[in-house]
């Protein structure tokens, strides 16, 4: 008996060792996405997002708060045709001529058959939320505007192709929604039509303090299962304009639809046993600040909660969720929690990971069910960008992609790093994007980094196109790929 026990323990240890070895064997590639032609740029390119063409993973599109460098009528996409090894800017996002903003909030998503790129933006100038599409993301033609409306925030886009039709889902916080139930998904069941229709679905079924949080995050599985996560704000205190606003009680809700969002009563498949209403309350009564601007104590980054949801490509019953709060008694501005459901969102685990003083969490699962979790943690006045990976949710490794100053450069606007960043899986590999200070110091990038823009790592100076004139540090988007 004792011998058997020993063998079991040894087996378990060996498995853990193997798991750690597998995790450590990954190949990390990190690149500053600012192209050489813009070596002199100093803009705060924050709030990045990313999509990969899953039919041709060499085609990748990134976005950030980057204006058109020539103040043209369109804002740029970051475009890669070689799997992220190099990037260029192509200005095709509808904007306003002369706008030095480029675009407000922006997220994009390819469909599944490589034919179209979709996007959701808050347009420069009008501030309207607009849904976009192009069939040629690298051509100079502007993306078509499919729909436009006022009073919405944080469009979050995901698209796929099912039965030959593009399914497009854009989560948002729609202030025009009646009754303060503002968490919304706009969806088209055939986005490829010349004039597709979008149905607006209010996914909040409970009362709120007057609105939901800005994050409404939809995620799609190839079998037609849709999940979405959002915050239900229940009570608040303080003055937002005075930067004292606190959501004193919030629930994190997950909804599900088993027919691609096209059920007669969409997103009501998951019912909370506690109150019998659609939408599982994963956690309740959580508290966090919702800031108008970042401060020194928050590393210049404004804080306002955090949500990310991912479904296993191999089993749509397995769902991972990242949510943020400020635990009672904590001095941290935000703590991130990773939790998991194995039964289609009906029940959720205790924390698999708990990360204090962190934000911008993003989670993804690859084709063999491996988990990756991207986040940015404030430590000793530095923003440290981590990716933690796990095969089983119990053992996690920890890659540090960037470790950059949280005090330099000084922010030019809020958000300093962005209200989100992004991570996704392409087969077994992971691709992601985050924004960080761009001082060319190898110590800031412990797993290595490639710069396209002119930089001298010996003197830790950015240089203009002439290769001589120094350029001040700013915030840039960084793309990374982890080869499993």
């Amino acid at each position, binding site marked *: 008996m004792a011998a058997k026990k020993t063998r079991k323990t040894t087996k378990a240890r060996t498995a853990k060792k193997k798991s750690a070895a597998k995790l450590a064997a990954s190949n990390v590639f990190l690149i500053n996405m600012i192209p*050489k032609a813009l070596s002199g740029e*100093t803009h705060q390119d924050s709030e990045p997002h990313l999509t990969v063409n899953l039919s041709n993973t060499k085609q990748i599109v990134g976005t950030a708060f980057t204006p058109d460098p020539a103040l043209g009528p369109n804002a740029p996409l970051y475009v890669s045709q070689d799997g992220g090894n190099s990037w*260029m800017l192509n200005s095709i996002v509808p904007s306003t001529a002369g706008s030095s903003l480029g675009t407000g909030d922006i997220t994009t998503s390819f469909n599944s058959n490589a034919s179209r790129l979709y996007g959701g933006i808050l347009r420069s100038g009008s501030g309207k939320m607009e849904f976009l599409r192009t069939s040629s993301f690298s051509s100079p033609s502007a993306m078509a505007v499919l729909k436009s409306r006022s009073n919405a925030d944080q469009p979050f886009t995901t698209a796929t192709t099912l039965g030959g039709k593009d399914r497009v889902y854009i989560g948002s916080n729609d*202030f025009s929604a009646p009754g303060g139930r503002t968490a919304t998904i706009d969806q088209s069941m055939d986005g490829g039509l010349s004039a597709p229709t979008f149905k607006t679905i209010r996914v909040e079924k409970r009362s709120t303090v007057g609105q939901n949080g800005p994050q409404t995050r939809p995620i799609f599985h190839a079998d037609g299962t849709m999940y979405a996560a959002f915050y239900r704000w229940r009570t608040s205190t303080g003055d*937002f304009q005075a930067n004292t606003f606190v959501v004193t009680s919030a629930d994190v809700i997950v909804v599900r639809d088993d027919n691609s969002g096209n059920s007669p009563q969409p997103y009501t498949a998951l019912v909370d046993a506690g109150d019998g209403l659609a939408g599982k309350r994963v956690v309740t009564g959580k508290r966090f600040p919702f800031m108008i601007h970042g401060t020194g104590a928050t590393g210049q980054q404004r804080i*306002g909660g955090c949500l990310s949801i991912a479904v296993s490509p191999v089993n749509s019953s397995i769902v991972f969720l990242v949510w943020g709060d400020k635990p009672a008694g904590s001095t941290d501005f935000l703590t991130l929690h990773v939790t998991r459901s194995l039964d289609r969102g009906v029940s959720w685990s205790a924390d698999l990971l708990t990360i204090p003083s962190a934000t911008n969490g993003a989670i993804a699962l690859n084709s063999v069910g491996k988990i990756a979790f991207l986040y940015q943690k404030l430590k000793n006045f530095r923003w440290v960008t981590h990716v933690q990976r796990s095969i089983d949710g119990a053992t996690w490794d920890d890659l540090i992609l960037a470790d950059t100053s949280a005090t330099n450069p000084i922010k030019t606007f809020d958000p300093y790093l962005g209200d989100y960043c992004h991570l996704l899986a392409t087969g077994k590999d992971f691709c992601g994007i985050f924004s960080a200070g761009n001082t060319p110091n190898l110590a800031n990038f412990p797993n290595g980094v490639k710069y396209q823009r002119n930089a001298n790592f010996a003197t830790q100076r950015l240089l203009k196109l*002439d290769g001589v004139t120094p350029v001040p540090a700013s915030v840039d988007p960084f793309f990374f790929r982890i080869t499993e």
Partner: protein
Amino acid sequence: MAAVPAGKNTIVVRVDEVIESLEVLEDYAGHDVTVQLRTGRVKSGEQYTFYSNPEIFGESLVVQAIAHETAVPSALTRAAAKPSSTLRDKLARARFDAADLVVAGLVTSVRVTPEAATAAARGAVPKWKPVSEHDPVTQEAAIQVTAVHKGARGRKEVKLRFPRSTDVRWYQAPKFVVGQQGVFMLHTDEKAAKVAVRGAAVAAALPQADTQGFHTALHPLDFLPLNQAVGVPAMPELHTDEEGEQ
């Protein structure tokens, strides 16, 4: 550049001089750029001036030439001390032309909008005011007018509304503080005012009347500090220190 397929209208040009551009592009002299000609032809080895819009920024730059002509660099360079300054002056001129009222003056007060102050004093706080990170946080500034450069004369004071927010949507709009002196290019376009005064998220919380008839100055060049304003060659209208005098 490899991203652009070669074609009969695609040429590679060695830049001798940048005449007008944003700062980020003004150091292209000596570098090759790919030019896509919209019209006309060029001869290899000849010099031209290209009027172009950048299209792709990658390993190098791709521009589309709207027009081109045989180069006359000496005439052009006389005016172009710095390419980005030339462009900035041009943009400032455009803001001047688009403005309804241009005044020189001094900011004497900055406060919350009177209707917001009144509502707060009455305790008439709306049941729920939408909270968005893109809230403009509208303020009202009073300007003591020292000269009117455009628009109806005779004003001693002008009020304008501006977003105090440092959110990405509003940070570039000038932020006014008491004691600031300069030239204010004011716009009363209703649509722009709606954007400036209300913002997407607070639309439901403010009465309709608040969105009409207010001056705004949203573009970074809508305010020029005195020392910058007097030297803009593209705006001779500003070369005056008293109302009506040139």
